[in-house]
């Protein structure tokens, strides 16, 4: 008996069992997958589920009607791009047959396999994919507990209104004024992002306000990503403008006085403050007990992104407790979405899950209007270590900022938005 015949018989056997059960249980046709969160991870998973199996029913739960990309949003802050350029709606997913519901998931029951939504709807599922993104841990920032205090110190680390708020403040900075930002301890969303921001703010100010200062207080002991490249640009093009201050643990913030209190540097008053708060997996994941030791990130099986604590629940994107060398990035989230979609379909079909996933990360950082530095890495599953590892020899950084990659970086941004939402 050949292999395909044997598979067909197996499918029949399991269908026989399935027909006795109230729920459909075999084959992806008609199976219900609910995806919570419509960012790079969730939207990609929803789209690729339908692309690879039009028989599966996919519902995406996302509160916002539009998605604003964090990648490239530092260019919006620097005034070289508009928010509209990096905003997408969910029509592309609807065209792929994804049911998009603009609501908030409030509760999950992994035993009954039901998700409850804010407006009262309950969605049953065969497989649940959570892409909850990040939440900000303001309770770790004394002085920013109240919403009123936070309103005076934008994070701009989820793109949208916050991005425009910071842009306005930077362009309204008094002549020769001080912009100070704080970078949290890694891991956080987008490792090179804070340094790109500092550089792009300096770029904007160099033209509009050349005596202004950019202070980068970093809770980490050194620049977390693209260190040599960023430091070289700060020493050349932005010399005297950007000051980098490492190991700067933030003790407290006085929002009204726009003052940082730093353990190593004392009180520092700025004209515009930008604090990127410490982060953890989005609230639903934490509320549902999906986070591992440390209470911040979700632990998953990297073959399927299934949660290590809740069977049938998969977690993708920034909320995942990353494997060694795996950044929290939009690119990685897009890649998680695809591996997870393929695994979910395999599981629904009773087929083996790909035991050798390989994914790519690339992050482009602008350091001026046209020039960019990239970092890239290839990640494969390691059977012994049971996690993703970077493939030796396949990682690299641009030798120096260059305009060729400035052109490619914008193409990347539009292509990954198309691949995710188009």
């Amino acid at each position, binding site marked *: 008996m*050949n*292999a*395909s*015949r044997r*598979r*067909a018989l197996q*499918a*029949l056997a399991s*269908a*026989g069992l*399935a*027909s*006795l059960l109230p729920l*459909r249980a*075999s*084959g992806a*046709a008609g199976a219900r997958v609910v995806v919570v969160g419509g960012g790079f991870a969730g939207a990609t998973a929803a*789209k*690729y589920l339908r*692309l*690879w199996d039009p028989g599966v029913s996919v519902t995406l739960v996302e509160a916002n009607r539009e998605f604003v990309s964090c990648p490239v949003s530092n260019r919006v802050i620097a005034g070289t791009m508009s928010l509209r350029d990096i905003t997408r709606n969910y029509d592309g997913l609807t065209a792929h047959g994804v049911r998009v519901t603009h609501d908030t998931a409030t509760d999950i029951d992994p035993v009954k396999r039901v998700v409850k939504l804010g407006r009262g709807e309950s969605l049953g599922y065969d497989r649940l994919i959570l892409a909850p993104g990040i939440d900000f841990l303001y309770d770790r920032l004394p002085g920013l507990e109240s919403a009123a205090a936070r309103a005076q110190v934008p994070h701009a680390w989820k793109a949208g209104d916050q991005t425009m708020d910071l842009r306005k403040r930077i362009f309204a900075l008094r002549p020769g004024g001080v912009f100070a930002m704080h970078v949290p301890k890694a891991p956080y969303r987008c490792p090179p992002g804070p340094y790109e921001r500092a550089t792009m703010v300096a770029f904007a100010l160099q033209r509009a306000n050349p005596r202004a200062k950019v202070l980068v207080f970093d809770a980490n002991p050194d620049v977390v990503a693209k260190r040599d490249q960023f430091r070289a640009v700060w020493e050349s093009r932005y010399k005297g403008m950007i000051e980098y201050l490492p190991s700067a643990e933030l003790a407290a913030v006085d929002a009204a006085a726009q003052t940082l209190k730093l353990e190593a540097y004392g009180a520092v008053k700025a004209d515009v403050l930008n604090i990127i708060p410490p982060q953890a997996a989005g609230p639903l994941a934490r509320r549902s007990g999906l986070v591992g030791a440390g209470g911040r990130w979700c632990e998953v099986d990297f073959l399927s992104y299934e949660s290590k604590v809740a069977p049938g629940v998969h977690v993708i994107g920034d909320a995942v407790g990353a494997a060694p060398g795996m950044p929290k990035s939009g*690119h990685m989230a*897009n*890649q998680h979405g*695809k*591996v997870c979609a*393929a695994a979910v379909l*395999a599981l629904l*079909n009773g*087929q083996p899950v*790909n035991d050798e*996933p*390989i*994914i*790519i990360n*690339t992050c482009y950082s602008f350091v001026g209007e046209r020039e960019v530095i*990239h970092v*890239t*890495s*290839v990640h*494969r599953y390691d059977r012994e270590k049971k996690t993703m590892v970077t*493939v030796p*020899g*396949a*990682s*690299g950084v*641009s030798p120096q900022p260059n305009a*060729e*990659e400035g*052109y*490619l970086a*914008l*193409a*990347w941004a*539009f*292509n*990954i938005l*198309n*691949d995710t939402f*188009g």
Partner: protein
Amino acid sequence: MRMRGWWVWFGGTLLVAADAQAQEDLKARGWAAACAACHGTNGRSEGGMPSIAGRRADELYQILIAFKQDRKQATVMQQHAKGYSDEQLRRIAEAWARLTAGGAK
């Protein structure tokens, strides 16, 4: 003997025999999907990045090997290509050719 398109009604559930799926190299389809973030879901890029749709598998394979061996100038592809074995690159090239109807394998 291969059984293609074998449809079975059972318990109200329409099943497609797994044959069509088995024909497809699902592992390579997964690997190839990684490329789509830059080259487009269907291998058609919106400017900047080159499109990789509609090419023959052997042509794509030769390009990928040239990147891997630093014989073709590149900004990122020389790095990406080193993340895969030659055999994996061949299967990825075949997956893209098949996905975008790029002719013979």
